[in-house]
């Protein structure tokens, strides 16, 4: 095991973490502002990837595809917010779970009807193909770009929340929904905008990740569950928590899968070590979550006290 390999895995973890952040940011905002648990967030990720792959295939341009993916996810988000989710804000979490589970079924089958049952493939844009020399190691340029892109979006999101009028309203909405409605803010429109924003971020993540994996129905749910782990660790409703949680989950998961089998191999048979190591590595982030819950039951950065 060399420093170069370790560095490469660290970068992979960083990239994974930043993509998770794009997913978690929307999920945590929607919960923070509307108090809604949205299982269909993974479907929006999938919609972003599918529309990106289809549009990129049609036009031959990845960037048009990315824009199409984000727009489609945001539009789908706004649509389901206005037709379905709006009726659920005052319901208990069980109804929300069930309704958004139903939405997963509808959106997954809908995607199958629209795009066919086979996976789509999305090529890395020509501008970002190849590798780049980082001194220690050669690293794929596209993955490096994902890291940069993720950081850029994170900064943009911070600016939006901390420095703009919309951001003030979102933060106010997290603190006291009734009060900002009483102050004359159109709360229904705000909810739709927040939901579309989160959906657009999920769609962006789906489109970006779509170029390094196959685009298929069901791709959203594993990411959704990881995003749940992220926001439980970070504290539900907190963007900062989502960032910290996403980076922790991304890096620990990636490094664990890389290191644990090798560590076990130092005192076990190689075959057995890879089995035990892989099995344990897949549990690592959940153990991290359990640990965080024992120490801070409301996550690392709880928004309400």
């Amino acid at each position: 095991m060399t420093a170069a390999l370790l560095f490469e895995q660290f970068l992979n973890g960083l990239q994974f973490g930043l993509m998770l952040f794009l997913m978690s940011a929307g999920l945590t905002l929607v919960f923070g502002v509307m108090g809604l648990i949205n299982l269909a967030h993974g479907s929006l990720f999938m919609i972003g990837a599918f529309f990106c792959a289809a549009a990129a295939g049609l036009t031959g341009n990845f960037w048009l595809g990315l824009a199409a993916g984000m727009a489609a996810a945001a539009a789908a988000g706004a649509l389901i917010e206005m037709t379905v989710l709006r009726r659920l804000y005052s319901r208990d979490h069980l109804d929300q779970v069930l309704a958004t589970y139903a939405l997963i079924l509808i959106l997954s089958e809908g995607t199958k009807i629209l795009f066919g049952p086979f996976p789509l493939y999305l090529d890395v844009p020509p501008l970002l193909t190849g590798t780049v020399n980082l001194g220690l190691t050669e690293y794929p340029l596209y993955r490096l770009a994902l890291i940069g892109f993720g950081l850029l979006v994170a900064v943009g999101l911070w600016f939006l929340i901390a420095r703009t009028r919309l951001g003030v309203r979102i933060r106010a909405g997290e603190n006291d929904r009734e009060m900002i409605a009483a102050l004359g803010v159109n709360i229904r429109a705000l909810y739709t905008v927040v939901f579309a924003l989160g959906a657009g971020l999920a769609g962006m993540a789906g489109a970006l990740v779509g170029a390094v994996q196959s685009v298929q129905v069901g791709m959203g749910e594993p990411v959704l569950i990881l995003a749940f782990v992220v926001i439980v660790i970070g504290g539900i409703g907190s963007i900062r928590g989502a960032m910290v949680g996403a980076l922790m989950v991304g890096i620990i998961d990636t490094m664990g899968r890389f290191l644990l089998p090798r560590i076990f191999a130092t005192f076990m048979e190689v075959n057995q070590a890879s089995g035990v190591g892989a099995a344990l590595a897949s549990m690592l982030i959940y153990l991290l979550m359990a640990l965080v819950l024992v120490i801070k039951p409301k996550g690392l950065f709880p928004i309400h006290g």
Partner: protein
Amino acid sequence: MADIKREYALNALLALGLLLVPIWALYNGAPFTITLFTRIAILALAGIGLNIALGLGGMVSFGHAVYFGLGGYVAGILAQHAFNGAPILGLPGTNQMLIIWPVAMVLSGLLAAVIGAFSLRTSGIFFIMITLAFAQMVYYFAVSWPAYGGEDGLPIYVRNQFPGLNTMRPFELFIVCWGVLMLALGVFALIRASRFGAALMAIRQNPDRVASLGINPFGVKLAAFVISGMITGLAGALMADLSRFASPAAMAWTMSGELIVIIILGGTGRLFGPVAGAAFLVGFEVFFGGLTEHWKLWLGLVLLAAVLFNRGGIVALIAGRERLG
């Protein structure tokens, strides 16, 4: 009162219908129908487990598939060791259901105790996500652990045995499952009518008041959660025997969702809610699955409509929304 009579009538209809249709199928040579009804009985049993936690205790566990899957693995692993003669943890394997069931229930209960001890520190949305995450953890462990099939699952070549019956015959396996289901319904009714059940339902409505009466809500909830996991684990062992396959898919989050769907569609906290829900779900899949490959789209729409417009499920539709507890 009329509503209660209607609920009793519906319950009797469900219990008897579940028995009579397979008997009819037995004499008319329709083994597929028997297998279908066995599936309904087993899913209903798993639902009864969840109904204790969710329906009576208000604990929205989105990870109950983990017990369902674990029960299946117990059946599969013990059968495999009985088959190849290798001991497991120093003990021999077995293909006797009467030994497999208690093992599945004890292990499911232990797992539920561990998961519950962490998850019940939280409530609301946290609880939903954490139960889901723990279930996924065990799921990924099962998928990546190669000793018992990993991703491929574990086949059960010959169904485990029940004394005096030939479980390889569909109807005899069905009778076993139906009997267990009736027993579990009895247990559910007993729990609901007991002091423990009263405490559990009171905690769902107002934990602080219950605590002020000197009852520890955490202990009651944890006990209910463990019982709940045990029953769902037993259902898992039966399902593995029915499909002759212990599958990691039985642990997947979609299964947890399906269990919630079963009890919500049927009627949360209602005695026969899970039976009605399981019958509806399996019936829907068979009927619409035969019409279109996109039946899940229609299931989604029906579910959505049920959540938005009809609260209380099938039992409430027929017998009114007022329920015991």
